């Protein structure tokens, strides 16, 4: 083995964290992994993570974690550059994978939104839509959740470093709820529980705390949103409740988008 390839193999993988339109919560999950953080940074080099460090090394990076949605022209250009710099690009959270809560503008007149919030609308530059990263560049893995589950993040980083498939569930919240032995809210209450179409990962916390799931992990794999919308109708919930249930933190994810628009037409 040449000395070059030897030093190459010893080189720590370089990780970068990028922020677009978001609340910072998903990247904070990295710092919230209190038990794993010091071990993790022993195995990787945090090359770019402005929220945590003033060291900002230039790319390329082995793994790029992207938080936030694209809402400005500048960010639409910046994500192209970020993609070029990252060997593996992972989106973290509902903003980056589904446009986030700020995608509620997508059904409204964004100029009116600007006027409502800002005294001098001409100072504000924004796009009509808030869109997920995958609408702009190819994404290697989308980690769901508003916020993401920090254990998933640790698993994902570990998996991408050793080059194996990450073990992240794609089934619904119902599975977690059953395992916890919760009484089913979708069946026993007149509440718009999003659990049946929402991807697991939170640990079914809302039903465990006596409330209906509000879908913050976004659509599960092959979510049957139309069927859940029918169920809401069957429960006698007004269609505006159904629309708002699908139009939350993952409103622009196509399964939820389609369902909310169908409920709206009714």
């Amino acid at each position, binding site marked *: 083995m040449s000395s070059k390839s030897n030093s190459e193999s010893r080189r720590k993988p370089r990780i970068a964290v990028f922020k677009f339109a978001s609340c*910072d919560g998903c990247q904070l*999950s990295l710092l919230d992994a209190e038990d794993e953080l010091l071990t993790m940074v022993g195995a990787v080099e945090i090359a770019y993570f*402005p929220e*945590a460090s*003033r060291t900002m090394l230039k790319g390329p990076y082995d793994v790029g974690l992207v938080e936030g949605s694209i809402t400005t022209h500048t960010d639409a250009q910046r994500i192209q550059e970020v993609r070029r710099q990252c060997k593996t690009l992972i989106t973290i959270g509902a903003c980056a994978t589904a446009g986030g809560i700020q995608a509620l503008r997508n059904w409204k007149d964004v100029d009116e939104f600007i006027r409502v919030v*800002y005294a001098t609308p001409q100072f*504000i530059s924004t796009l009509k839509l808030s869109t997920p990263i995958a609408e702009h560049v190819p994404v290697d893995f989308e980690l769901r959740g508003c916020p993401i589950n920090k254990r998933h993040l640790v698993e994902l980083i570990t998996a991408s470093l050793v080059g194996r498939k990450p073990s992240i569930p794609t089934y619904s919240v119902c599975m977690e709820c059953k395992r916890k032995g919760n009484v089913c809210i979708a069946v026993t209450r007149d509440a718009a529980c999003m659990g049946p179409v929402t991807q697991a990962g939170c640990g079914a916390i809302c039903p465990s705390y*006596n409330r209906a799931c509000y879908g913050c992990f976004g659509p599960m794999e092959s979510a049957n949103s139309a069927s859940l919308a029918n169920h809401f109708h069957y429960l006698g919930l007004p269609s505006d409740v159904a629309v708002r249930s699908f139009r939350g933190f993952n409103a622009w994810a196509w399964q939820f988008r389609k369902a909310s628009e169908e409920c709206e037409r009714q």
Partner: protein
Amino acid sequence: MTGRTIRVDTLTRVEGEGSLYIKMSGSRVSDVKLRIYEPPRFFEAFLRGRHYSEVPDITSRICGICPIAYQMSAIHAIERALDVRVEPAIRLLRRLFYCGEWIESHALHIFMLHAPDFLGYPDAIAMTADNRELVEKALRLKKIGNHLVTLLGGREIHPISATVGGFYKVPSKSQLEELITDLQWALQASLEAVEWTSKLEFPDFEQDYEFVALRHPDEYPLNEGRLVSNHGLNIDCAEYEDHFTELHVKHSNALHSIIRGRGSYLVGPLARFNMNFDRLPVVAQDSAKSAHLSPPVLNPFRGIIVRAVELVFACAEALRIIQEYTPPPRFVTYPPGRA
């Protein structure tokens, strides 16, 4: 040429995105621009038409580092609008909830965001090379705060349990009592944090700020009180718009807030401490005194010590609440007119 310009394109180790521009003529600062370039997300606009019960979940997403502050502010505003009065035990739990957020957020701020500046490291991770014990202690402290938030709220970031009128679910007394040992450790670690931060080197810089904070008749303010300042402000929060103006400046997406007729003002730990020193528990007052801190503290660099004093307060207050707590007869008080 006597002019000098300082330009920081990316402010690091802060929540959000900003840059700073300072222009100097000789030794005088002639212009400062803090540019928050974080893209607008329009919460005020899309909250219109949402059900009141959805609002706290949505406002939480304004900030993932201090979600409780945002969800609780929304809850208080709605409860005020709908005339909801909560059970005394709910009020206590809310203070406990805030204590959890303060412990995790203050520990993060002091050790992982702020301390590296004083010690000359790029970040807390680099700090571990020579200060591993300190960083480990900080992480444990942060974890205890997060644990408290998770117990009450279901998870640490964007907790799901707080709602208008109360909590969807409240903990049992024994669940809270399980935290006592950790919180006692955290109290001790916080006292050490006050001592440790007080030994840092601070630039000699003081300014005559107007400090604005909440003030409550008998508590250190977390979630309610009147809005007061050291320049005579004393108003109900509902009168905010009569006394403050929010301006939109060209270089920033964050609105600037000024007190009418007087201009800029300072909020946060330093302001709270200066306006409410007498409301701190004895253990926090004593720790401040031993760090030679007495109000008014006019040097913003010493804010790191004040934050550590608030950490002492949050731990002591959490322990007091757990001692006093009896679960409420009902979790949620609904607004009048709702079943």
